[in-house]
């Protein structure tokens, strides 16, 4: 069947769907974690009970993680309504109300996808969406990722059809002109990379898609693969045609089973309709894509290390040159790009280079995708034009810090990135500005911290991660990061001296210089940025043995305020795992500091009307009380 007919059929199916009632449920991994599958079962049962036939479609993620499980109900001649935080017990209400009846159940709704005069917000006008610009996330959560026709009906594979009629040089020229830079983190010019691979002299070439999203706190590649896999696949096929490759690999981490399953299905459907495989769309171009399952190693995100993993070896980076474009997978010229980089390609081909290059800043074109997590009101996924300020992301999109707390920092780019403080929030986000601030775009994971988070502990956390993930090839990375971690351990436990800060600084810079790959070169970033912006906190830990955020265990003590403790309440006594709390019914409770393991359970269970348990730092500030001494003398209860 020729593509024109496939497209017509896809559009007809899509239009037909609009004319029947149907339910979309966000069922990416994040939605499932929040209970989406139970909601789907509840819908099935309720619809069966009412004997009505309505299609339930599992879609990907719309990016509003805080609202999961998310349900969109669509009926002909009616508004499409988005419902948030739906649980199985709310399902009968939705079926009865909006599917059978005409009550839109507005008390459960986030908003509508069409305009309406009723008192329910129009979703595209919500503050968050006004600042967003969705180029590669535009289908996520709206189309069925397991149905290639949904993608085609929305303009999918048109770019491939167009590209196959162009000479490869012309495509590369377009990508160059668009100004697209690699979304894996470093921001290398994509067109240049393609050109190098295209010019490499070899009959056999490969294209590899890097979906080894290893940053603990970034999940956009997973969401894109789970929500709109064909967008990435189309980009890979176009790249394969442009550089002259015959085979592509998508390297996905095994931790993402749903992404693997959906990509596998998408590849099969692509072969069935002829956008993949032999003689693609009648052009004579042959291209196959396979999934290569990763087995979890942060360093595999590095291009040469990833190639080693696909070949079945330990993921150790190697010296470049030769570049992958000269000698990559099995020694052949290889083009390697990130999931998002490929996802932009169909857009660029369809809209022309100007459509892309007109968005963003002078040196960073297009949009940036970020995952938002940590202490904010609205965690999720967002896509904004390059050049948007951090302040806009924090306050207008993420809804600011939750529980009325103070913003402290945003960590961008995970273990390779850095902490950015409040006074730099007006920084326009692009590759270069973040680099100057000591951070980097990296994975695009943003973690927001509030006043309760300790800068030193956060740096220690990332170092702990990179130390474990270092492949061990370079001495500076293998041993240097371990030494950094050991100094940070000393600081967080109150054993450090002031001169250790100089050592920390020097060693951090040496590791940057003395490491081969991005992992080692960027590993000190969290330490360097926190030292730069939160130097006072480091000093408080060292000089006063005080953790200002009350996080570092060795520098804090738990204390029960006698004036707040309720004599009749025994919550803390009953849960304390080390029996460190003395005091029966009718007594004021006292913590035996020698027995206390600082697990925080007493603070957690102390009823909010008393809030008698507090953390104190430095430990020397702990009020001494006779009862306390008595308690330790008796060895507790």
């Amino acid at each position: 069947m020729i593509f024109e007919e496939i497209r017509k059929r896809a559009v007809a199916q899509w239009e037909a769907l609009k004319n029947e009632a149907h339910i979309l449920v966000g069922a990416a991994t994040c939605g499932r974690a929040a209970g989406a599958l139970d909601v789907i079962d509840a819908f099935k049962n309720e619809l069966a009970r009412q004997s009505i036939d309505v299609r339930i479609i599992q879609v990907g993620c719309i990016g509003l993680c805080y609202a999961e499980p998310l349900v969109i109900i669509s009926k002909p001649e009616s508004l499409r309504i988005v419902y948030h935080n739906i649980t199985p017990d709310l399902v009968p209400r939705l079926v009865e109300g909006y599917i059978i009846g005409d009550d839109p159940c507005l008390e459960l709704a986030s908003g509508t996808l069409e305009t309406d005069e009723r008192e329910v917000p129009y979703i595209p006008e919500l503050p968050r969406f006004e600042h967003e610009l969705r180029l590669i996330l535009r289908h996520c959560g709206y189309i069925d990722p397991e149905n290639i026709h949904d993608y085609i009906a929305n303009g999918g594979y048109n770019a491939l059809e167009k590209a196959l009629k162009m000479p490869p040089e012309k495509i590369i020229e377009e990508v160059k002109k668009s100004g697209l830079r690699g979304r894996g983190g470093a921001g290398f010019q994509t067109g240049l990379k393609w050109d190098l691979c295209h010019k490499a002299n070899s009959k056999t070439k490969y294209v590899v898609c890097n979906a080894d999203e290893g940053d603990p706190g970034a999940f956009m590649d997973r969401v894109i693969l789970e929500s709109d896999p064909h967008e990435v696949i189309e980009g890979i096929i176009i790249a394969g045609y442009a550089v002259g490759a015959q085979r592509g690999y998508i390297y996905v981490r095994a931790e993402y089973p749903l992404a693997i399953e959906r990509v596998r299905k998408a590849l099969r459907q692509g072969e069935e309709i002829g956008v993949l495989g032999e003689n693609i769309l009648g052009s004579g171009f042959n291209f196959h894509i396979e999934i290569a399952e990763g087995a979890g190693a942060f360093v595999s995100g590095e291009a040469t290390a990833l190639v080693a993993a696909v070949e079945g070896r330990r993921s150790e980076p190697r010296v470049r040159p030769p570049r992958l474009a000269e000698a990559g997978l099995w020694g052949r010229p290889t083009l390697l790009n990130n999931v998002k980089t490929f996802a932009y390609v169909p857009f660029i081909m369809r809209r022309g280079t100007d459509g892309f290059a007109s968005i963003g800043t002078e040196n960073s074109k297009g949009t940036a995708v970020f995952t938002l997590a940590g202490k904010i009101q609205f965690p999720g996924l967002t896509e904004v034009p390059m050049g948007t300020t951090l302040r806009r992301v924090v306050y207008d999109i993420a809804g600011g810090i939750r529980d009325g707390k103070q913003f402290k920092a945003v960590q961008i780019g995970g273990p390779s990135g850095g902490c950015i403080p409040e006074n730099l929030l007006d920084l326009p986000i692009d590759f270069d500005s973040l680099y100057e601030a000591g951070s980097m775009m990296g994975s695009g994971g943003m973690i927001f911290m509030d006043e309760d988070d300790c800068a030193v502990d956060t740096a220690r956390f990332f170092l702990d991660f990179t130390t474990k993930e270092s492949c061990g090839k370079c001495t500076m990375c293998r041993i240097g990061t371990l030494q950094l971690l050991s100094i940070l351990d000393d600081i967080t436990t109150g054993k450090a001296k002031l001169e250790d800060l100089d050592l920390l600084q020097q060693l951090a810079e040496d590791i940057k210089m003395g490491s081969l790959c991005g992992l080692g070169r960027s590993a000190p970033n969290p330490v360097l940025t926190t030292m730069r912006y939160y130097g006072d906190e480091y000093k408080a830990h060292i000089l006063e043995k005080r953790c200002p955020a009350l996080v570092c265990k060795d520098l804090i003590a738990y204390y029960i305020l006698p004036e707040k403790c309720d004599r009749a309440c025994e919550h803390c006594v009953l849960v304390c795992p080390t029996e460190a709390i003395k005091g029966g019914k009718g007594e004021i409770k006292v913590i035996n500091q020698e027995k206390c393991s600082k697990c925080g359970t007493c603070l957690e269970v102390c009823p909010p009307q008393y809030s008698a348990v507090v953390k104190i730092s430095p430990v020397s500030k702990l009020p001494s009380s006779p009862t306390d001494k008595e308690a330790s003398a008796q060895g507790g209860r």
Partner: protein
Amino acid sequence: MKEKGEEISTEGLQTILEKHKNDGKGLIPILLEIQKEFGYLPKEAMKNVAEVLKIKPVDVWGVATFFNQFRLTPLGKNHVKVCMGTACHLAGGRLVLEALERELKIKVGETSDDGHFSLERVACIGCCMLAPVMVIKDKIYPKMSSFKAEESLIPYRQESKPED
């Protein structure tokens, strides 16, 4: 290291090896599949893989010990994973982990002597908005605390009580 439970079904292993013998997909997918079959990578199986792929056993061992997914010991009946991603760390993931170590009387990476529980820390399961998160078997437990983590173990403990 204990070598108990090394009696593996050769039949399952042979099927996997036969399937991948000549497909050129490399070592990692084979090891992943073996682990799926046995729950971990038995030494005997790794030796067989080396023979079939005509590579040195040390290269198989090298890969098996390099990647986080691979386990060299069998899992407990109830496998507990604690997320230690950035968001979970900030939200108190370490306290959750410590509570589980204390309650289960095993350290991270260990399996209890009776084989009922094993404990593992994982980098990020991508549910940052539900932090801190732990997973028992395949069920995700959102917004944990040391106290809630202890409580969540109760049904699994009852289920794994010896029948006497």
